């Protein structure tokens, strides 16, 4: 994994003055560069470099494998039929155990739909009269018209300086 920056000192100075995403944080010592025959980039021992490259390679491969959207990978998740049966039986036993331990299952009761606290009262009540329905309709229409006619006139500045002396 090499570094893209040049060893030219003028360019390095330019990079320092105008740092960007490729500007390295560490520069190699000039003496080391001469020893390596003007080779650019950070200098490591050959063994370390190989090891680092390998681990970096592995890391990139792993990350890529995680990031790749692979819808064909369903095949790899298939479990043997026997294993599945075993696991299902284990789940069944443990579920029984957990439910017995908690003793909560008796209180499981479907809730009434939210918004209707007492449906029997609502259903048993006499239907509302037509005049009431008309009243509700006309009032709601008037309210809707009134809401449409609301116009906002701004008088004060919308930007308020806050906490500025």
């Amino acid at each position, binding site marked *: 994994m090499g570094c893209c920056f040049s060893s030219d000192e003028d360019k390095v100075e330019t990079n320092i003055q105008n740092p960007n995403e490729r500007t390295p944080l560490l520069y190699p010592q000039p003496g080391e560069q001469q020893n390596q025959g003007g080779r650019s980039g950070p200098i490591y021992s050959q063994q370390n470099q190989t090891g680092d490259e390998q681990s970096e390679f592995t890391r990139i491969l792993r990350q890529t494998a995680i990031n790749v959207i692979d819808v064909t990978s*369903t095949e790899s*998740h298939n479990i043997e039929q026997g294993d599945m049966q075993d696991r*299902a039986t284990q789940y069944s036993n443990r*579920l029984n155990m*957990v439910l017995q331990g908690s003793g*909560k*299952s008796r209180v*499981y*009761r*479907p809730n009434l739909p939210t918004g209707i606290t007492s449906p029997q009262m609502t259903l048993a009540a006499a239907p509302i009269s037509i005049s009431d329905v008309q009243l509700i309709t006309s009032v709601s229409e008037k309210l809707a018209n009134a809401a449409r006619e609301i116009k906002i006139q701004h008088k004060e500045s919308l930007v308020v300086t806050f906490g500025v002396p």
Partner: protein
Amino acid sequence: MTEELKTYLLKLMGTVEGLHAIAITDRDGVVIVKVTGQMAPDPALRPPFLSVFGVMAEQASKMGIGSNKRIINYYSTYQTVQVNHHPLLLHFIADKNANTGLILELENELADVLKEINKVVGMM
């Protein structure tokens, strides 16, 4: 005890018209508890179908728009609502005309049950 849970799930299933089956599975689609009605399509309750959702939710989470929570499929005669409730997966199989919103709401109704079942998966 499991029977009581199943009775509860059946009652819950009855609250949504057209809901044919509720299955709670682990990430691999192994059924932990399942209740079905007479109209439930068998292929939608077999491991090959149930296991796919876990993988698909995982893959769909890589799109860069956050983790995938639910996948709803509409078929010509049925709809499936699948909910990713880590580490569990909920599968609802319903008629194509069933109210999807009510089915989604069942996740909240099942909150207590799911807490208990979470323990079962945690023990494995």
